[in-house]
């Protein structure tokens, strides 16, 4: 909802970010704070995060689960 195109396509006046999910910086901070050497991603933009973490020296991979994108 921070992205204008998403609001426009749905015809919303305003978008508010209300989420119990971590955002990109939050996910990276958490990965760093745990010191995890291996990170498995179950859903969301797994591909981008996997690639980024691997480039940062963390062994990351996507893990196939039954999670949908809305969960």
């Amino acid at each position, binding site marked *: 909802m*921070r*992205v*204008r*195109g998403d609001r426009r396509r749905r*015809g*919303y*006046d*305003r978008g508010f970010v209300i989420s119990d999910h971590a955002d990109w910086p939050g996910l990276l901070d958490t990965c760093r704070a745990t010191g995890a050497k291996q990170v498995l991603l179950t859903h969301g933009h797994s591909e981008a995060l996997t690639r*980024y973490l691997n*480039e940062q020296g963390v062994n990351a991979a996507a893990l196939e689960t039954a999670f949908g994108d809305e969960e």
Partner: protein
Amino acid sequence: MREFADLYDEIDTTTSTNLKVAAMVRYFRSAPPADAAWAAYILSGRRLKRFIGPALLRRWLVEASGLPEWLVEESYSSVGDMAETIALLTETDASQKTATDVPLAEWIDERLLPLRDVEEPAQREAIVGMVAIAALSRMLSAEQAADR
């Protein structure tokens, strides 16, 4: 430019044509003529001619943000607009919607348009500096607002 930024927000945060028109009427009634002329130019969808294009802005964004190029590309394809991608990727944690007090016409006539006639490194330095200042000023005014 604060007034123009507020106008943009007003137009962007409603789907009602009547409210958009009312916001524009309010703006154009009080805006100085030079600002109003540029506002009409921008709002009618025109762009500065012979000016720095999106490909250069994209390259500078990659350099200034320190993010990998593919990640900037990925962000762009998800956002769909280079200006918005730059705004989102350069925002700071404390940033709020606060624009600068420099009038719109001064921004364009005196700060942006002269960049047409300088070499690319100087263009880059100026634009990256402006983005950094915009992020900083948003942060500072957010701090001031928090103090009040």
